[in-house]
């Protein structure tokens, strides 16, 4: 993981990006299954189809950069270095989970890795990103804060306020918009009067551009350029055009898009795209790719087994962590 611009060719980062995406895909597929088995409960939002976005951006981060995500964040957590065992245990609600089991799939946290969730109020984490960056600025630290959010969040007032504050105060925030074209069942065109998203950033005098979010290399390249600006103390907005192959959550009957549209997007599966490119370039062979899937499956199965075996938080400690300082009465 380096934020420099050196060594960013296909040979340098392609194989790693492919491995990243495969790890996320395998974990997510397994989560879907576990939801069916009622091991995972609540809402569950899968990132399948969107892996190139998290993979491409996160490979650009330094260890002390901060990351904030939506409820569709399992992949981001994994690629940020949160152990699969801690993620899976959290999905199960076990005490060994990365949020002590209290958060569940929408609230993965890892303070040590500066992974600030897993946030389930659409747009609600955007001001937090501004504040984290402000803290860095005020303390003279050159760190970046990356906040992922869906295109649906852009209609929220909190988006507007956060964008303006970040630009006004010249804060090192990368606004990474995961434009998968739908917010639950609402298409971008029925949510925004102006669907050219970089124009929104222009209203705050913030640099912005659009990237093919199915192409991990393109995302990686764009994130590198964006973060170079961010580290100089200017926010940047990136629109990452992607698509979710699955329904919004496990509750969604997916009535609002037709199968042909989904199929068209599946032809541009980010894992296939990069895999073919690496094969064509002779940078990996099929056996190498198969090994990546096998490794990912092993990682996920170990995590599932560990989660199964992990203890529950006892009911006796339910009311811990309400305030850090407890007032004795």
């Amino acid at each position: 993981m380096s934020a420099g611009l050196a060594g960013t060719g296909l040979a340098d980062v392609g194989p790693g990006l492919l491995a990243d995406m495969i790890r996320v895909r395998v974990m997510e597929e397994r989560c879907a299954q576990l939801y069916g088995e009622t091991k995972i409960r609540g809402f569950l939002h899968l990132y399948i189809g969107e892996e190139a976005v998290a993979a491409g951006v996160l490979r650009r981060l330094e260890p002390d950069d901060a990351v904030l995500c939506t409820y569709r964040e399992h992949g981001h957590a994994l690629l940020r270095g949160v152990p699969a065992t801690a993620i899976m245990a959290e999905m199960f609600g076990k005490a060994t989970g990365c949020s002590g089991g209290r958060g569940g799939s929408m609230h993965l946290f890892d303070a040590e890795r500066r992974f600030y969730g897993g946030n389930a109020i659409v747009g609600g984490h955007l001001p937090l990103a501004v504040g984290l960056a402000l803290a860095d600025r005020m303390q003279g630290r050159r760190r970046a804060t990356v906040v992922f959010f869906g295109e649906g969040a852009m209609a929220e007032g909190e988006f507007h306020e956060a964008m303006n504050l970040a630009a006004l105060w010249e804060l090192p925030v990368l606004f990474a918009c995961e434009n998968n074209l739908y917010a639950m069942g609402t298409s971008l065109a029925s949510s925004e009067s102006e669907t050219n998203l970089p124009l929104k950033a222009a209203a705050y005098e913030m640099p912005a551009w659009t990237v093919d979010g199915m192409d991990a290399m393109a995302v990686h390249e764009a994130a590198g350029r964006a973060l170079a600006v961010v580290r100089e103390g200017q926010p940047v907005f990136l629109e990452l055009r992607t698509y979710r192959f699955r329904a919004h959550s496990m509750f969604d009957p997916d009535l609002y898009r037709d199968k042909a549209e989904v199929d068209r997007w599946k032809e541009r599966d980010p894992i296939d795209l990069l895999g073919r490119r690496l094969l064509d370039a002779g940078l990996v062979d099929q056996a190498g790719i198969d090994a990546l899937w096998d490794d990912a499956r092993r990682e996920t199965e170990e995590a599932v087994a560990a989660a199964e075996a992990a203890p529950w938080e006892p009911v006796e400690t339910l009311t811990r962590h309400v305030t850090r300082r407890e007032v004795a009465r």
Partner: protein
Amino acid sequence: MSGEEISYREALHEALREALAADERVFVMGEDVADYGGTYAVTKGLHLEFGRDRVRNTPLSESGFVGAGIGAALGGMRPVVEVMTVNFSLLALDQIVNNAATLLHMSGGQLHVPIVIRMATGAGRQLAAQHSHSLEGWYAHVPGLRVVAPATVEDARWMLRTAIDDPDPVIWFEHVGLYNTKGVLPDPGGPVDIDTARVRRPGRDLTIVTWGGSLPKCLAAADELAAAGIEAEVLDLRSLRPLDDDAILASVGRTTRAVVVDEGWARAGLAAEISATVAERCFWSLDAPVARVTSLDVPIPYPKHLEEAATPQVAGIVAACRAVVGEGPP
């Protein structure tokens, strides 16, 4: 539709359908109310029948579209705005408290705001701390609002029309645990008031005061208590603002003991109001302190066993009732 069993969800759907058909001024607006069918599938298909203008999808802009609903009400419409869940209504509180609740008064009675704002409330689906609030008590605090919480299939079906016809802003709570509950509608059915409480089960030994999603739990608790020889009266508030004090005081006046069951947090919640009202106004007739069964003072956690421990359950209600019935001077 009367005679057969229908679900709470279907009853709401039917009520909306009827209102849309009966009154051109009525329209439904909210996130994903059209193609998606509503998060809890209440509005499913209505856009096909009434068009996308009157079953209107909104962007994720809670303050914006709730405010637009208030404006549309000022403009002569009868909007039914769906804010998905009470958790997101925090984003619209300025509109609700500073506009909907004040305009009639501030304008000296000139303006009024006939809007219904529907929202799902409550925990029990393992959605964790940001998605499990029960904030009925907050809304019930505010003069200028009407607050209702239909708990039965009949109320889901027949309170809505009354709410839509009401000249004032009505905040309408649907507990997430109720959508799949079933019931048989009275035949013939018809609009019911949105002002009064109802005794759902009569009893002489104590009164359980509750509403919304806690009603089924209280009825189950009353069954258990009955098996042990304790006859609990279960009062379903239905209207949370104004409270039907008369009904509360009449019941507790008879039973002389009360337990309030509220899925919200305890301190300064709606259960506190009921406990205070009962104690203040039945002071000389009460035979035991009022007990509150509420959620614990904790953000609602994700795992099932912790979520259940954090929120009112039948066993806890039964225990509280037994304690209140057993209580006497020290």
